[in-house]
């Protein structure tokens, strides 16, 4: 069995950034395994711009952003395989992958970074009743058909869910000559970025219906229409106000799910809230030497944040390979009062007091709040926010001193002061 120091599962933005950072920390024995035919991950089909403002201080398309990282990986001579699907990650860190070229290969790794991204929640996951003809796509599938394959998945669309991919696809389908009749959102607010609502819907006069959902899908062979109804405060559809919208396509942008099947096989503990692993500030999971970063850990708004998080994971993986022992004692970070989750999920009780970045999401739209971090009931950090929303990830930076206070505390809490 081949032995390697670092195997990175996934050659998208997370895997590429992790590989680059690991290399730059001195690690040379790295292999990236990518299941698609090319490196770059989902960015390859995100041909719109808006990527890279944080990382490169300029506005790039998805493929351009990916290429910057691919170039850096190639320049460094980091080994990678494409069309190579990892089918198993064992608890003792044996990675099994399959490809037509290499056949079935097993590698004993010292460290593994899981960077396998997320998938879209399908129709079945939200229980939409009705017929099951062709024409119901997740927004990302439609995006691949249009942007990579060059085919139109529909002429008249309704989009359910106002997640970013749904919004982007509303604009994309319109550019390609399709009519987007409505974007329907179950919640009274969008889970997408505000800039996407403005640039993708408002600029094209596409109506956005909040507090509405699709309750029925018509059409035996192909979708012929969807029935849309408003929902009450408990999100239950008000059926006597339901209306048929004729269309041939329903695109779903109803949530992204971290793809953690491999993690589960490998015994990685997962969070019920994010669907990703429980990690410490080194992005390490409960399994020593197994790290997670990017959308497999938690779904990000911007790829720039994925890159930053993954570079940290790459760096920490190298420290682990070089003998840094993991700390047995962890301090949980408790999220309360409207904070849904925070990454990292826990801190090591060690004396490594480096500045840290915390990423978090809130459970609802709140106005005029303070995001605060408490250690044993004492406020360590506070940040006033005019408005917070589930669709916009919050980020806070803690100084080394603040981190020290937290690491010495018995109880850490991140909360919203309203």
């Amino acid at each position, binding site marked *: 069995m081949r032995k390697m120091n670092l195997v990175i599962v996934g050659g998208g933005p997370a895997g590429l950034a992790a590989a680059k950072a690991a290399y730059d920390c001195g690690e040379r024995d790295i292999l990236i395994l990518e299941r698609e035919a090319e490196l770059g991950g989902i960015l390859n089909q995100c041909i719109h711009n808006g990527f890279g403002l944080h990382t490169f201080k300029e506005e790039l398309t998805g493929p351009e952003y990916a290429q910057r990282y691919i170039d850096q990986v190639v320049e460094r001579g980091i080994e990678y395989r494409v069309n190579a699907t990892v089918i198993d990650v064992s608890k003792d860190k044996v990675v099994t992958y399959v490809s037509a070229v290499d056949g079935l290969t097993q590698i004993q790794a010292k460290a593994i970074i899981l960077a396998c991204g997320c*998938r879209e929640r399908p129709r079945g996951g939200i229980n939409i009743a009705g017929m099951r003809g062709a024409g119901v*796509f997740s927004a990302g599938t439609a995006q691949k058909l249009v942007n990579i394959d060059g085919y139109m998945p529909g002429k008249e669309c309704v989009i359910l869910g106002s997640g970013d991919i749904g919004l982007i696809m509303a604009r994309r389908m319109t550019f390609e000559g399709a009519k987007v009749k409505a974007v329907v959102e179950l919640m009274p607010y969008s889970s997408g970025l505000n800039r996407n609502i403005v640039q993708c819907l408002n600029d094209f006069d596409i109506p956005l219906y909040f507090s509405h959902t699709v309750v029925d899908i018509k059409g035996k062979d192909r979708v012929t229409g969807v029935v849309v109804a408003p929902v009450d405060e408990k999100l239950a559809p008000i059926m006597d106000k339901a209306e048929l919208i004729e269309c041939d396509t329903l695109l779903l942008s109803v949530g992204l799910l971290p793809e953690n099947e491999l993690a*589960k096989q490998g015994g990685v503990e997962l969070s019920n809230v994010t669907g990703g692993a429980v990690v410490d500030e080194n992005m390490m999971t409960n399994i020593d030497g197994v790290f997670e970063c990017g959308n497999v850990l938690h779904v990000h708004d911007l790829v720039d944040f994925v890159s930053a998080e993954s570079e940290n994971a790459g760096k920490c993986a190298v420290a682990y390979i070089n003998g840094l022992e993991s700390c047995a004692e962890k301090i949980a970070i408790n999220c309360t009062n409207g904070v849904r989750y925070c990454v990292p999920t826990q801190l090591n009780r060690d004396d490594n007091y480096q500045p840290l970045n915390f990423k978090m999401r809130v459970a609802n739209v709140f106005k005029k709040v303070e995001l605060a971090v408490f250690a044993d009931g004492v406020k360590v950090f506070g940040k006033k926010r005019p408005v917070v929303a589930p669709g916009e990830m919050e980020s806070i930076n803690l100084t080394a001193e603040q981190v020290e206070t937290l690491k010495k505390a018995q109880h850490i809490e991140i909360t919203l002061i309203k």
Partner: protein
Amino acid sequence: MKDIIIIGGGIIGCSIARELSRFSADILLLEKGNDVSVGTTKANSGIVHGGHDAYPNSKKAYYNVKGNAMFDQLSKELDFPFRRNGSMVLCFNEDLKCGLNDLLARGEQNGVKGLYIVDGDKAREMEPHLSKSVVAALVIPSGGIVSPYEMAVAYAENACTNGVEFRFLSEVTGLKKEDGIFTVTCADGYTEQAKVVVNAAGLFADEINNLICERKYQVQPRKGDYMLMDKSVGYLADHTLFQQPTKMGKGILVTPTTHGNILVGPTATDKLDKDDVNTTIEELGEAFAKALVSVPTLNKRTIITQFSGLRAHIPENDFVVEESEVEGFYNCLGIESPGLSAAPAIAVEVAGWVAEKLALKANANFVATRKAIPQFSHLSNIDRQKLIDQNPLYGNIVCRCEVVTEGEIVESIRRKPGAVDLDGVKRRTRAGMGRCQAGFCTPRIMEIIARELNLPLEEVTKRGGASQVVFGRTK
């Protein structure tokens, strides 16, 4: 002219075709859809019933018990997924416990072996996720589960190997008998003659019968909605869990599938339209609520898809398996549950009648076995490597959720009768049947279908007809 025309490519038509292919005869199967197993066969509970439920002396009871006993050998011969997981009928009410005794007695009268009754605690020992409200259960050790569409495909492939001709998109619209010879006409103008016609048209068997027989039938489509749960909760049930039938209805079952998912359903609603497989919020909600009575820890969040199927119910409430009043015209009509369990026995019986009628000789070249497409996900790593060495397409994983390779998909298209659309590939290989529900693999599978069948991508469909997936190129 053919010796025999079989109308219908569901489980009944395909199994009869295979049993008839044991004999030396010119056999044609006509199917309205573009593939086998596209009607009731593809959307049902996939249960091989023990046979306790049907009324004694009914054809349902007779063929069910007989058919059930054939599954072990048959599933080996034809290599389709089958497991004798055992069934349980759950009783939730002390006052109704005696009803289980009645069911047990009925089952024994039907010839079902091994039935016994356990108390609630024993039932929970056997099925740890059962509700505390279960007070007793009838255990049917001979109950099983099968993948119904894979079984039909297996029968069809084996029939094809043994010389049966399949013609698809062949909706029979005309049927007459003159001078002892049947003439069958299809909607597309195709006409063929035969000495014997077997009606296995499922939901439409009444219409076929009514073309030629004085005795008329009417099939009442009865819809059942289902929910399929993720494999990650496959541990919630090992037996097939029925609820004791009461005045309120037959209850909702919770069962594992042969692939390790959990299936919940079916409801029962009479429909006017034989194409109306519309699931409704109300029925799905009803099914889920009732399923919770058996297994309270079922979670809606683990549902991966919903579907519904139509039962071919007739008011006579029993199977019609007979040579009809028209000599040489055989009816398989009203084949609702336990039709899947009964199919192997019905097939042998009908094939026997037809062979006798036509004085057929044995087919000297008959091959009794058929091998399934290699299932990469189920193989050992050594066998996986061998497969990739033989054919590198088995190293390209297309459906990541179910771990289905390009090799399997290509094979499913190249077999006879082969897959011609996305759903056909899905039924044969499980590509697209996993938790992402074909989100990632749809474009890849479309490309493979287009390449293998030499079609433009625009003509690749989900399931034939007007179910095209894309509408031409972008600007």
